[in-house]
């Protein structure tokens, strides 16, 4: 993997810190000691994920490799690295910000598309991100309807969020541009698992990319941090 160093933008990180309002700072203090990758659950299961390399590329300005990489989207967000880091780098915030940057370049939309349903259908329509609706057939017949369990526990059958609150978060979402951000992606419509057929399963599992998101051309991502031994089949 040839490092075209002249293709790096070495002023990116310094200019980026003030813009990101203090969410991201401290990466220049990194000792490259590897303490974060040692305890990282994602690095243990993914063939080529390595937080130390991502910080190294960010600070040195190799942002092309970071933004176009699959590894950036494999982070578990468990902030164990922030807990053990000897220089206190809050790595999950870096991943969160870099993912926003990668999406602005057209990468990562196949994952965000699958999550968009939780924001548009659940969060904005009934104010709760995780909806009571179950899709796992085993859970539906074994455990039964959650509303009965809530009633047996002496609580209202369904948690109510007042429409005033829903009106307010919808306004916040419109004002801050989140609504038209989601309209561009168009979420994955989720199928009923109990009526699953091979065709539906193939469509549900496939991660096809939205053609374009707004005026941003979308691309597939690449394993930029090492050869995916054994990991390539679900690339």
């Amino acid at each position: 993997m040839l490092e075209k160093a002249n293709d790096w933008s070495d002023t990116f990180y310094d200019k980026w810190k003030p813009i990101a309002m203090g969410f991201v700072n401290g990466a220049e203090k990194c000792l490259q000691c590897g303490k974060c990758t040692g305890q990282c659950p994602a690095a243990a299961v993914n063939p080529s994920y390595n937080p130390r390399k991502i910080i190294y590329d960010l600070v040195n300005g190799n942002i092309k490799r970071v933004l176009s990489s699959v590894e950036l989207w494999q982070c578990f967000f468990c902030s164990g690295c922030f807990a053990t880091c000897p220089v206190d780098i809050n790595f999950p915030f870096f991943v969160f910000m870099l993912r926003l940057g990668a999406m602005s370049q057209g990468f990562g939309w196949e994952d965000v598309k699958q999550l968009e349903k939780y924001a548009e259908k659940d969060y904005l329509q009934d104010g709760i991100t995780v909806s009571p609706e179950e899709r796992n057939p085993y859970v539906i017949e074994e455990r039964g309807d959650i509303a009965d369990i809530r009633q047996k526990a002496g609580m209202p059958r369904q948690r109510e969020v007042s429409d005033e609150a829903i009106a307010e978060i919808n306004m916040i979402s419109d004002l801050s541009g989140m609504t038209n951000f989601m309209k561009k992606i168009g979420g994955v419509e989720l199928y009923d698992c109990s009526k699953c057929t091979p065709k539906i399963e193939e469509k549900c599992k496939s991660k096809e990319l939205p053609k374009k998101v707004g005026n941003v051309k979308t691309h597939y991502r690449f394993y930029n941090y090492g050869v995916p031994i054994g990991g390539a089949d679900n690339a």
Partner: protein
Amino acid sequence: MHKLDKLSGIREEIVADIPIPEEIFYFQSCVASNKYPGIESCTLDVLNKLGVKPFVSEDQTCCGGFVTFANVAAPTASMPAVARNISLAEEEGLDICAVCNGCWTFLNEFGHFMNGNDEVKESVNMMLNMMGREYKGESNIFHIGAMLYKLKDRIAENVERPLEGLKFATHYGCHYLGGGKYGAIDDAQHPSFIQELVEIMGGENVDYTASGECCGTGFTQVINDKEKSLDHSQMKLESVRDEADPDFVIVLCPYCLSQLDRMQQQLDYRRDVKLDIPIIHITQLAGLALGLPKERLAFDAHIGGQDRFKKALNKIGIDY
């Protein structure tokens, strides 16, 4: 046996400045209300029993942490939503108590951030004034685990159903101790405050190698890349089954609870791994010890470990 006496990482100065309020704003968590209602009912009853009246508001929406860190909502979109939720508690003049690591970290992180950055606070308040609300940033956010640890003497007095003969393993979750390491009451690498509570309630602590590991959700990996998330959860649950073989695993966050609970069925279905481990939340543990009835504990909402639930609960006198 967990070596408690040797070195406890509890940060006394942080525990000291947690106030014991008469009333507190209970921040409803989305996974708890729609998947595991036992957490909500136990929290309300336990707080009432311990003399802290929980205040529940229907205006309180989701903390928005999941949609933000799943990159669907940019931070500028979810910060006003966080400020709106905190302003609800400020209207009542109460502090907030969150039952989920994610809610606590998200409200805390953005709360501190907005207090530190005035222009952000101004622009957030500009949006909130449109709805007639205002974010002052006075009420602080506490985790239910920290509250229960702070009220441990009252718990000791109110234990009605001592948990004799039950073995408890713990899973502390990542965001409270790791992500919020400067606000949490315990040390991220070797936490022990749940073990202390278990000992107060009469139970026995067992330890296992992967107790410090993440539960495997990876925040969005369980949706985007289920195989990797299953690998990690399998490693963790097998370490629990083989080394600790507990009656209950206590977690601090409903999202960990849903992951460790439901992945047992997925692992059985996809990878033929037989697991039968009951996973309960710390509020349900407190409810168990303070003698709450079976319906309020709502263990039937849990998917995995149902036969072990039966065995363990019969041992302490609940015919489940």
